[in-house]
């Protein structure tokens, strides 16, 4: 048993401050355990979002000692406890209260992405090696930590012309689905704002699912957009022959 000191943000839209709490910790405790202990014993109205407490739902994202993380997967013995541990809400989204933020924007921006559009009359045969990449993207638990650290959203608040790493990953999961036939390249170029991303990889660093957001999702999408809109040779051929996306589900050179 050991006492640890916390500074937890308390407040709402009108303002707030870090408040001091002391928590009795036992072996193996995570940050969320400490927050729940504060809630149960000291501050019953301390607002905090959580669900599964096992890293599967992505509800409890916060900034612990300045680092965006899932509170349920952050062990107290893995962070610096020599000074009081600070816990703040995700900065990029409007504050509701204390550690909860309004993440509605993510659900709205998601509607810009054309839904899954399978080829008609497909036999639904897909090889494992052809879906490995898509499955990597589908591991996303929508914790929105990548959105939180993306400087386009965090520092420049560009939420109208940019959909952010989470939704770029979702777009990639559809674009690279072996049986999908829709094209989302125009969306990516325009209202998706993929050009805003300058590949600083902050999103990849905070992803609790270890999705290679930048390397495997965003960069290949950027290449597709470039091929589609900026490659002079390809665009000449496309004007001649059309540019429909692989209707038979097979990959073509132009896609890579």
């Amino acid at each position: 048993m050991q006492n640890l000191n916390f500074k937890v943000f308390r407040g709402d839209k009108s303002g707030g401050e870090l408040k001091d709490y002391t928590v009795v910790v036992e072996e193996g405790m995570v940050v969320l355990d400490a927050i729940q202990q504060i809630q149960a014993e000291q501050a019953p109205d301390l607002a905090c979002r959580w669900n599964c407490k096992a890293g599967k739902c992505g509800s409890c994202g916060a900034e612990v000692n300045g680092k965006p993380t899932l509170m349920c997967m952050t062990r107290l013995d893995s962070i610096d406890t020599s000074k009081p541990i600070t816990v703040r809400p995700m900065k990029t989204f409007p504050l509701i209260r204390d550690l909860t933020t309004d993440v509605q924007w993510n659900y709205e921006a998601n509607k810009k992405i054309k839904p899954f559009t399978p080829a008609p009359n497909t036999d639904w045969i897909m090889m494992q090696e052809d879906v490995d990449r898509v499955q990597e993207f589908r591991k996303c638990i929508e914790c929105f930590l990548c959105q939180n650290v993306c400087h386009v959203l965090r520092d420049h608040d560009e939420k109208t012309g940019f959909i952010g790493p989470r939704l770029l990953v979702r777009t990639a999961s559809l674009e690279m689905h072996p049986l999908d036939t829709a094209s989302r390249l125009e969306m990516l170029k325009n209202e998706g704002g993929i050009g805003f991303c300058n590949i600083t990889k902050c999103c990849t660093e905070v992803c609790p699912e270890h999705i290679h957001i930048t390397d495997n999702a965003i960069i290949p999408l950027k290449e597709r957009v470039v091929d589609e809109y900026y490659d002079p040779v390809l665009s000449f051929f496309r004007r001649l022959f059309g540019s429909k996306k692989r209707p038979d589900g097979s990959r073509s050179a132009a896609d890579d």
Partner: protein
Amino acid sequence: MESYTTYDYDVLVIGAGGAGLRAAIAAIEKGARVGVVSKSLLGKAHTVMAEGGMAAALGNARPEDNWKVHFRDTLKGGGMLNNWKMVENYTREAAERVLELERWGAVFDRTPDGRINQRNFGGHSYPRLAHVGDRTGLELIRTLQDHAVKVGINAHMETTIYRLLTEGGAVVGALGFDRQTGEFLVFRARAVILATGGLGRIYQITSNSWECTGDGFALASMVGADLIDMEFIQFHPTGMIWPPGVMGVLVTEGVRGEGGVLKNREGRRFMFDNVPERYKGEFAETEEEAEKWLGGDREARRPPELLVRDVVARAIRREVNEGRGSPHGGAYLDIASRRPADYIKKKLPSMYHQFMKLANLDITKEPMEVGPTCHYVMGGVRVDPDTQATNVPGLYAAGEVAGGLHGANRLGGNSLSDLVVFGQRAGLAAAEYAAAPGSSGMVSDAQVREYIAEALEPFSNPQGENPFALMKELRSTMQQNAGIMREESELKTQLDILASLKQRAKQTSATGTRVYNPGWHTAIDIQLMVEISEAVVLAALARKESRGGHARLDYPDPDATFARLNHIIRRSSDGALSVVAEPLPEMPEDRRRIAEVKDLKELSDKVGA
């Protein structure tokens, strides 16, 4: 006077897990105006935590598999208390519902020839679970969420339903509040579908998320809906037991499906000593035979680690009680010595991650320590097997909140496909009901105002009890007195405790504002949790035998009389709960022949399955 906002829908779906989303999609496709209410954000419901897979007799892994084998396995695993018609509907439709998910964008793991792969699980005669590594629930909920957005759902996220609203004995809507603002909301609806999931949070050690407070059972019971078989609670054999903060977090049965074995502290695979009479002959009797099975020999029988969950959970409990447990009071689950590290990381990635992060343990190198954790309730709101209608007009239930499909014990993997099969059925039936003339009732403003005043009471009790402390007391006493092993004296003690908790739950205190206030939310949750705990304990007292997820120390064996009875938990007009025993619905002879075959050979000889 407190104001409220009113919404009008044909069908209101309460809950946005697998069953709720599938129901909403079905009702929208029928042309209904549909509202979906969820306590969490979209995509975070407890379904997201499901790991191992969804059972459906696709016949991809083994062409011999079909709905009849699945039917027989489900009834056998359920101690034959299942509603046979629900089991038939379920096993016949599960495969189509899985294929539909693929057409909506789900990407399941593949067989070598490019079809949906299937894995082994306890109680299933063949590899039957479509899966995505060990994150199948995430795949299911995300696919349904995306498809629901595509067909245009109206989602009220982070909204709690406080009470159902009735008129003339029919459900006509619900009163709730927005957790983010504290504002009250009235939903007028011609039909209401409960898809609120389970009640694991009434126990101290559980795999369930905070949402699983049993709301739907209590809401339904309060408006006169019958509950069925509430004594049957599934304690999943393998939850994490160390460190203390993660006690109860699920370790997927997929670990055993992929070849993992259970050992006691002496290194013995104790499941060989725990094969119940009714499963004799279906499981490997030596480690050599089990090894052959793992190596792919189709003549070899399955290892006993793949027995049904109630059997495995009690076997672990026995090892611990008899002094052969692991250091923290559980058993060892070993996949490290069975499969190569890369294979484990590919097939069980979130287990690898979970143990690495939370327990500093590498499951590719060391065995895990596991023990039973409250995981699921087989009982629930009693429904019609075809329409999921309750006995209250306008009220439907689907998914874990509905009872009947799983009998006394649920097979792993049967839950996710339950959600989509009966979610779809409930959505269709509710939409049809809502479209019929005369199904519209009036919401009473007086009823609404009375409930609102009641819901706000904790704010005017500054001297009241701390709701978190009360919740802790409920959970620890339920664990102690109505847990995995039960006996009459403890159950009676628990009834007294619940009677007192019921009064104290009305006297809790909330401080601060109504904006996202967990103390206030807990004060409201605890009232329903006490109600539903009482139903569990009463039903457990009444069943004087041991069967499936109900084990009595004072009645350790199955009993022939109780083998023919379901328990109906009914509320009288004065609010008191009582338990009524009812004979099982009559199973037609041709179905009985399928259900009662001894083994698969007999099944194929006798009924051509």
